[in-house]
């Protein structure tokens, strides 16, 4: 009896292994990582490019579901949720599925999530957040999955054939250009110090515990304020006394109360400003806010009443749309569309929008929230997917996501 059961189990294992074999050995990175495509060249034995007309945008393409893991630091963050809502929208048109991590707090959590994604059959990982740096990217690609994200580590991994790129806000012609977080802080600091305010404060978020993203944003805010002051702004800001450190907690709220009771008339925050609105209302002050946030109901009333005068906004489909294009192209045998002319992974230049008027904010609000539409539609996305549009080029991919606020509003 035991022998029969053992034999049956062995047969089950054999069949299971057979069932796990990909239908097309050339599709997907795990089948032959790094060798299935020649950057910028032809697909050696890859999936044939079907004509565009033959690919219905009804969620049935690609034939095999492309699973993508998403590394997140806070799954309830409005900006993150905005990005995922866009991907959900695309999910109605393409057979792509996203698996989102819990809040990643430590490198071991990140490695474990990557391992889980590999076990779940993910083709790639979207690094919305990254703790372990280039090691996380290498850990991902070593398991045959593509990785998208993290400009900071781009030089270390750009040559890895399974690393498919990231975004950048840098001026590509400026070798000394700063990264996107610095630029966001700079824009905010400059805008607030140029708004005719007397005395402003700053919330520095994770800078106090050395989180690079927040350190960059803080440096940007300081430089932005300094630049405005150099141009004649009389706004006062003293880093020694005017910084609210860390995230909301007892000492954060104590400093917040001190600021709202003091002679301050504005503040810049390097993360969302939700915890300020109710205390501002309670204080009865005319107090201005500049924040890195998103176009949502949460901000609308405070933009409309003039409390929020500057909002740095990462439009989900513009800043992170290339995640979808790059990972789906790579996973469907069109990894050539993720490589630049130098053979390295794409550095997709995109634009972070600074919403400095209620008019701009409400235009985006109407598009996204009222109408439920996006500036980059599924049809436009399809045009840069090699599996849908055989004529798609790297330049098409690069151009689609390099959309300024003015471009978007004029669409």
């Amino acid at each position, binding site marked *: 009896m035991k022998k029969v059961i053992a034999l049956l189990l062995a047969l089950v294992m054999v069949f299971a292994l057979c069932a796990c074999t990909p239908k097309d050995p050339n599709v997907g990175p795990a089948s032959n990582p790094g060798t299935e495509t020649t950057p910028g060249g032809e697909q050696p034995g890859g999936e044939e490019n079907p004509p565009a007309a033959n690919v219905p945008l009804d969620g049935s393409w690609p034939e095999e579901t492309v699973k993508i893991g998403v590394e997140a630091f806070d*799954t*309830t963050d409005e900006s993150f949720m905005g990005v995922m809502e866009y991907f959900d929208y695309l999910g109605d048109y393409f057979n792509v599925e996203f698996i989102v991590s819990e809040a990643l707090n430590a490198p071991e959590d990140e490695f474990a999530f990557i391992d889980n994604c590999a076990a779940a059959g993910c083709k790639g990982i979207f690094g919305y957040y990254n703790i372990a740096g280039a090691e996380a990217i290498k850990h991902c690609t070593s398991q045959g999955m593509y990785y998208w994200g993290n400009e900071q580590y781009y030089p270390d991994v750009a040559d890895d054939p399974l690393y498919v790129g990231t975004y950048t806000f840098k001026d590509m012609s400026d070798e000394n250009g700063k990264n996107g977080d610095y630029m966001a802080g700079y824009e905010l600091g400059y805008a607030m110090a140029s708004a005719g305010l007397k005395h402003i404060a700053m919330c520095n978020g994770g800078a106090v515990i050395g989180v690079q993203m927040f350190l960059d944003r803080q440096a940007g805010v300081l430089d932005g304020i300094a630049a405005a002051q150099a141009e004649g702004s009389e706004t006062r800001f003293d880093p020694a006394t005017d910084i609210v*450190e860390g995230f*909301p907690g007892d*000492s954060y*709220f104590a400093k917040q109360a001190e600021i709202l009771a003091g002679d301050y008339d504005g503040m810049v925050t390097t993360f969302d400003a939700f915890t300020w*609105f*109710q205390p501002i209302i309670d204080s009865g002050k005319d107090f201005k806010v500049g924040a890195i946030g998103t176009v949502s109901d*949460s901000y609308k009333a405070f933009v409309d009443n003039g409390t929020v005068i500057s909002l740095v906004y990462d439009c989900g489909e513009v800043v992170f749309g290339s995640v979808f294009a790059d990972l789906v192209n790579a996973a469907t045998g069109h990894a050539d569309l993720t490589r630049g002319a130098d053979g390295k992974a794409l550095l997709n230049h995109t634009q972070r929008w600074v919403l400095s008027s209620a008019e701009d904010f409400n235009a985006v609000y109407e598009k996204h929230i009222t109408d439920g539409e996006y500036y980059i539609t599924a049809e436009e996305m399809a045009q840069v997917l090699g599996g849908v549009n055989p004529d798609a080029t790297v330049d098409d991919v690069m151009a689609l996501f390099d959309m300024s606020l003015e471009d978007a509003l004029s669409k």
Partner: protein
Amino acid sequence: MKAKKIGKNIVMTLALPVIVYLFFFILCNATGHAGFGVGADLTTIIYNAVFAGLVAQAMAINLTTGRFDYAIGAELMLATIVGGNIAKNLGWGPAGLLLFVVAIAVALGLISGLVYVILGLPPMVISVGMAMIYEAIGYMYNDAKGIKAIGSPMLVFSRTANSLILTVIVLAVLVVIYDYTKIGYNRRALQGGQKIAVDVGIKEKNNAVYCYVIAGFMMGLAGCVYLSRNGVIAPDTGLGSSSYFMSAFLPMFIGGIFGKYSSYPIAIFMGAVVQAIITSGLQKMGVPNSVQTVINGAIVCLFLIYDSNSYKLVEVQMFKEKLAQAKAARRQTAAQ
């Protein structure tokens, strides 16, 4: 004699907050940081004390009888998100907020308590599991948007007068429960020695469920105060809700030391006041957050060390008294 004792108890109960307040008041003014402990600063101290005090009451009622309830933060988060949204949608104002949030928090506390007594597993294990379940529900509810009620007229519980009234009522109720009811007597008996208490007929399971329910009630009130102050609560995952009770420990330890001069709940609240004063004082002087964390940790350790070893002082005192009695007896014998 009785009046003297009452006077001493009142002085001892108020001594620490007053001393700490005066210490920081003088220190801040001496170092050129005027404005400590008055105006907006006082408002912040009161808010922090009320919030931390309520959370510490919830934590203490279980922890002192050996049950660390890791789920209370998740109870606050889930009850406030669900109850707050219901109250907001129905437009029932402050009463609705209080009613729904507290009712849901009590229900969550009851569930935690029942799961604990039914499964009989270690409270830490149970409460971590319950915290994860509550967090997951909070995440699923309302598309993970939590509650955003900024500007809503129902957010009145963080106003100084309202929060003080709330505190007085809560303390009165808790003092009655702790010092004048069977639940309180049994809790103290169990705190002294569970086996002996159970052997003499105290129903430990019933008492545990009551304690979890009371803890839920406190967290519901804390949720109302927190939401009133900030206007938003986002769902937490990965045990992130534990951040809500991290400020509960110092008040609890201070309560343990000074409880004998009044009542344990009152002493806990005084501990919360002390903690709020320390936080505001350090903030006023511009002490960096990292240093504040070190100082707060050191203070917690000091109180814990004192609390754990205070019996030695009593022993020394007893030894001295006995020695004095012995010497007196010896002198008396020698004189005869």
